[in-house]
């Protein structure tokens, strides 16, 4: 799926790719032993990114997204300082932040 990202990445000299950096919150990676706080992957949209996270750590999709389908109410995904939705495209080279919102009591 990642190889089907539209266009050639600007730093792509080898094959079609959309390399991004993903940053995950500590309370999320604590639920998945071995998951790092920072990782790299190919993903053209937030949906692709979540799918790839879920492929690497089964169950992680359900922690980030609900069945609407949508990013959970108290989870946030930011690209270049902007909060984005599940279908948002990710520009190649982006750093994507998955964050927990203020919640709880």
């Amino acid at each position, binding site marked *: 799926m990642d190889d089907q990202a539209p266009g050639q990445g600007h730093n792509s000299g080898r094959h079609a790719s959309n390399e991004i950096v993903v940053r995950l919150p500590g309370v999320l990676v604590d639920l998945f032993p071995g998951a790092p706080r920072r990782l790299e992957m190919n993903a053209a949209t937030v949906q692709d990114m979540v799918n790839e996270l879920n492929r690497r750590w089964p169950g992680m999709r359900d922690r980030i997204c*609900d069945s609407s389908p949508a990013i959970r109410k108290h989870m946030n995904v930011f690209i270049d300082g902007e909060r984005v939705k599940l279908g948002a495209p990710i520009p190649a080279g982006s750093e994507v932040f998955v964050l927990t919102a203020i919640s709880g009591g």
Partner: protein
Amino acid sequence: MVAKILVLVGTKKGVFIAESDMSRQTWNLRGPYCETWPINHAIGDPASGTIYAGGGNEWFGPAVWRSTDLGKTWTHSSEGLTYREGEEPIKAVWSIAPGHGQLYAGVQPAGLFCSDDHGDTWTHLDGLQNHPTRKDWMPGGAGLILHSLVPDPADVNRIWVGISSAGVFYTEDGGETWEPRNRGTRADFMPEGQNYPEFGQCVHCVVMAPDSSDRLYQQNHCGMYRSDNGGQTWESIEDGLPSSFGFPAAAHPRDPNTLFLLPLNGDSKGRFVPDAKAAVWRTRDGGSTWKDMREGLPQENAYFGVLRQAMSTDRLDPAGVYFGTSGGTLFASRDEGDSWEPIAEHLPTISSVETMVIDE
């Protein structure tokens, strides 16, 4: 020979486990587990020794946690624990029950799921959602939750569930079709003359008496009831109780006529123990008469409540009885309720209390 007994405590911030030997004299507390997720129900499956805990986290949604080493390590899953796209997503797991090799989970918004692989993956038993009354179910104070989950130990196809505030529903075909079973239970919050509807009652807790699949007890928002025919009809057994309002009910492990209750002072007076004095009420005759048991329980300035899944018995003889309060105290009795002592204090708000006895 009993090796140890575990009291499994679900709280607003994780699972705690109180552990003792068969004397039940001293208790060791450990936890919190499950990454301090809000846990609505923690149970032990006596057949496998596995502990399950269901809840829902504001960030991460619903999951069922599992420990196969008595709480030392945990995993979690919500694979398949989902409604169809476009429907209101599941917020939390509210109840868990093992039965005939299956594991059942009740969720919010109300629905029933089943797992045949010990909670790794879940399947929606959608017959309940497809019931023609579904569109008219109204949420109770805690939401539209499926809390009481009573598989018949004698028949894999029979299950009773309690939904707030849709009432009691029953299936005898493994969850494909359901019927309301609320005849005789009141809905005081309905208009005059409409207080005994087919469904819509605010059931708080349903438990099954031992050794009889047909005897059920129900603590309701509006009264206390017993059924001797699997819920086809319910009879009020609230005479002699200080209040018709409360949340939990706990059956005796062997005597179908013994039941433990913890009535509260009513739905609009703070939902505390009556007169700020704590008591567990016990019947030995199926609800005809009640006795209050107070020895060791606070008798002044006790402003706590006890939630619907926060009282339980163990299977020792005499039976132990346990309850956990909204203020985070876990009380225990090793003499069927005659006397009490706190065995853990200062916990988060306690949502559920269950026991698991481990044999040598």
